[in-house]
């Protein structure tokens, strides 16, 4: 009796098959030779499957990857330029595989405005974020785009000391709350 069979027999004394499936995932135990054959057979099937993937399936996978990496970025507290609004929008346009002109027409903004946003010459507005949500069929909610933008703003506010000093000099009669 192989190892997985022993495990299964032991579990079966206490649990039904349905209960086993709800609490365990364990692999069939094979001899080294059998395992090698199974791995080789599977490798061929997997590589064939990758070749058969449609552009739509590849797009779904790539957009899911972009979304999950964005979510993981939101869990951190740092600013990463790769996750600026502009860079993520650029990445999104690249993944969907259309040119900027077509994309700007699809989301109803002027190509020059889109170019200025992508090159960080202009800040995105909330209207654009709603349009990106609609364009992505809800996969990238407007608030995801807002979070990207807000993270950069926060970083700039914290690090632009020159601007801070410049603006501070324009304030008269500040409150003095220190004891």
């Amino acid at each position: 009796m192989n190892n997985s069979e022993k495990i299964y027999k032991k579990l079966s004394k206490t649990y039904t098959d349905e209960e086993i499936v709800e609490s365990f995932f364990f692999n069939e135990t094979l001899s080294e030779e059998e395992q090698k054959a199974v791995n080789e057979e599977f490798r061929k099937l997997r590589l064939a499957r990758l070749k058969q993937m449609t552009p739509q399936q590849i797009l779904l996978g790539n957009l899911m990857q972009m979304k999950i990496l964005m979510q993981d970025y939101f869990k951190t507290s740092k600013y990463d330029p790769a996750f600026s609004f502009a860079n993520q929008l650029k990445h999104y346009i690249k993944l969907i595989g259309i040119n900027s002109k077509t994309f700007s027409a699809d989301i109803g903004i002027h190509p020059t405005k889109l170019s200025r946003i992508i090159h960080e010459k202009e800040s995105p507005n909330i209207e654009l974020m709603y349009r990106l949500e609609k364009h992505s069929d809800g996969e990238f909610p407007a608030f995801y785009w807002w979070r990207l933008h807000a993270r950069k703003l926060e970083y700039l506010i914290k690090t632009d000391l020159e601007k801070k000093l410049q603006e501070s000099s324009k304030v008269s009669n500040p409150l003095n709350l220190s004891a």
Partner: protein
Amino acid sequence: MPLRNIKTGESLRSAIEAVLQSDFKLIAKSKEFDFDWEVEKENELYKIFLVNAEDEILGIMSLIDIPEEYRIHLNLIEIGKSNRGKGKVIDLIAGSLLAFGCRLSFARGYFGFLSLHPKTKLIELYQNKYGFRQYGRLLAVEEEASKALIQKYLPNE
């Protein structure tokens, strides 16, 4: 990610993180797990716990990354004794770990592909419960089915 208290229906906040060296003591001490998890050390190990009870590991998962085949292989999941079978208190633990594996697969650019080589007798049950499909002698979830698992078990991600 919400788990569920079976009796009250209450949603329970949980987290999944990599298993640390210090966790092996907790795993052994709890007597909740039957498999020898030290043996799995060479693989990627993840634990699931409630956010207000970090020391109580509810379930553990062992994954093998196979980048040349664009897949992650699910080597082992075990849920602690208190949450198995008829007497279990918390539900959705295994599904949450499985969905986390699918999420990792998407994040690594493998299109959500997660494979498993279960006992033949259990294949149909894994297919019906989690949407696996057969690939030769293995099972796998990928793409839409993988996304569906993430949406079902990790809705707040």
